[in-house]
């Protein structure tokens, strides 16, 4: 146990950034998993007698336009944060990594074509594309996740491809070829494990992106709708009330959103520090 404690101390010294990020993510993770323990009220039951009440002892973050407890809704919203970000990133990885592997190793025409397609995807404003696709295919959580995953895959493809480009002429790959490895083994047993670090480091950052975009979509009225306690939808609803002075409806979900995205970004940044020895905080 003491050894584990020491190991944690050791790693956290390598990157204070990653440590801070992990703490934030863990906080939200706990909230998402054990939301029942932390929610004083049911997030979707409305107290019709207490509409738009400012923060009080009973409702720490106040109540919204439907009389629902904002605090409970913010906590519940953490589920969506993770529930969207994680599957979206997984899909992005599942699409992007194999494409990056093959494009990087094969090169030539295949590489050019794939990369142009992916470049096109990246260049296109993702919000607009996501809006269009979700609007066309239907407002469901699943669609949002799929679209986000697809839109995010070029990042992973590029990262893996650049590592593969560097690695494909390295000696151990040549040794693998000399041993008689077929191409699929070279790609998945030799190249993949050695080219995936950069992509893995990016997952946290891309998760942050997914959280942000889904909140934006919800804010724009696409995807998740009220009264679902998703932060973006809550901000949308709360925006109307900002003008009339009821700031708490929008601000608290806003802070939660910023905090989670910030934590994910910190972690992603910190992972880079740990993986790249040159960036480490030295003794």
């Amino acid at each position, binding site marked *: 146990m003491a050894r584990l404690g020491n190991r944690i101390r050791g790693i956290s010294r390598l990157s204070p950034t990653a440590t801070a990020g992990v703490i934030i993510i863990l906080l939200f993770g706990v909230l998402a998993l054990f939301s029942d323990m932390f929610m004083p009220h049911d997030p979707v039951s409305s107290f019709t007698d207490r509409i738009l009440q400012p923060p009080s002892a009973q409702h720490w973050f106040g109540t919204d336009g439907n009389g629902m407890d904002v605090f409970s809704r913010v906590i519940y919203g953490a589920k969506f944060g993770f529930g969207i970000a994680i599957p979206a990133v997984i899909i992005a990885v599942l699409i992007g990594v194999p494409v990056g592997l093959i494009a990087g190793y094969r090169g030539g025409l295949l590489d050019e074509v794939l990369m142009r397609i992916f470049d096109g995807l990246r260049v296109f404003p993702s919000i607009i594309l996501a809006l269009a696709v979700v609007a066309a295919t239907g407002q469901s959580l699943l669609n949002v996740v799929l679209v986000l995953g697809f839109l995010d895959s070029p990042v992973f493809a590029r990262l893996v491809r650049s590592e593969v480009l560097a690695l494909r002429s390295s*000696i151990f790959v040549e*040794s*693998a*070829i*000399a*041993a*008689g490895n077929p191409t699929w083994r070279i790609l998945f*047993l030799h190249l993949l*494990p*050695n080219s995936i670090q950069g992509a893995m480091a990016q997952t946290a950052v891309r998760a942050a992106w997914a959280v942000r975009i889904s909140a934006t979509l919800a804010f724009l009225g696409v995807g998740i709708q009220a009264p679902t306690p998703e932060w973006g939808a809550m901000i949308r609803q709360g925006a109307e009330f900002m003008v009339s002075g009821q700031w708490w409806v929008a601000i608290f979900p806003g802070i939660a959103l910023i905090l989670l995205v910030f934590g994910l970004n910190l972690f992603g940044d910190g992972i880079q520090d740990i993986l790249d020895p040159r960036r480490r905080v030295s003794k």
Partner: protein
Amino acid sequence: MSELVLSTKNLSKRFPVGRSGSFVNAVNGVDLSIKRGEVLGMVGESGSGKSTIGRTILRLTDPSDGEITFDGQDITTLPTKLIRPMRKDMQMVFQDPWSALNPRMKIGDLIAEPLRIHFNMSRSECNDRTEVLAERVRLSADFLNRTPSALSGGQLQRVCIARAIATNPKLIVLDEPTSSLDLSVRAGILELLQELRAETQAAFLFISHDLGTIKLISDRIAVLYLGRVVEEVPKDKLFSDPSHPYTQSLLSAHLPSDPNETLQRLTLQGEIPSPINLPTGCSFHTRCPVAINSCQSNVPEADEISPGHLVSCLRLKDGQNIIRRDLK
């Protein structure tokens, strides 16, 4: 089974340089042959093409010209799909053991890989064979579950050798296998190779820039300069009867560890020409102390001056070795 495992005829390899239209002429007409159980040493400096020859013979890169015959079969233009299964019979040991092994694979898996690919062995059969191989190369079985970062250079090279002999290949190409290793570690590896060649009767192509090492392990030695074999000599004649002027200068530059051995330096002028711009005729003529006019225009053929001793030099047609030696 044929005695001759490998032979090449006029083997050449050119690499294009960017888009400029010029080429690096790495290998320029090399004839080689290696028999079962024989060790052919290949020695040369940078630009000699020795590494490229090793790779071309194994079809890791395609030849630009000439023929490669492996175990009686012409493999010069065989498509990759058909070469792949042949790789169980021709293996390579690379110079730098740290970069030659996938840093994320376990040692046991690295050794077993050729077995997995070429034979349909069950997992337990594979494991057994891996243990036998590890023992054969005197590598402790404790290491089989570690990754390369846990082993020293000498141990890693033993892993590479185990990997190379796993499928009982007929030909093993070793590209500077001991050059990156410490002196005391080299000895162990060379001893291991000596045992293995006797045991397996495989043909070895041993590439090195170090004359001392080459002499120790080889039966015959081919001296390369700018992609051509200038001299091919049985091991005992290398130090006693080097005939080509380049071989002599190479030998004279070699520093023995015995301070009492006086050096007889044969200094060459200038540096090795670039393989992009090969000199005409005999490529050595620009630095050769005994070059004459016809050396600029004629590429010398290989003459057998005594059994097993071939030299490519126009001056030898004069019947005697007239190379002067500059005493230090």
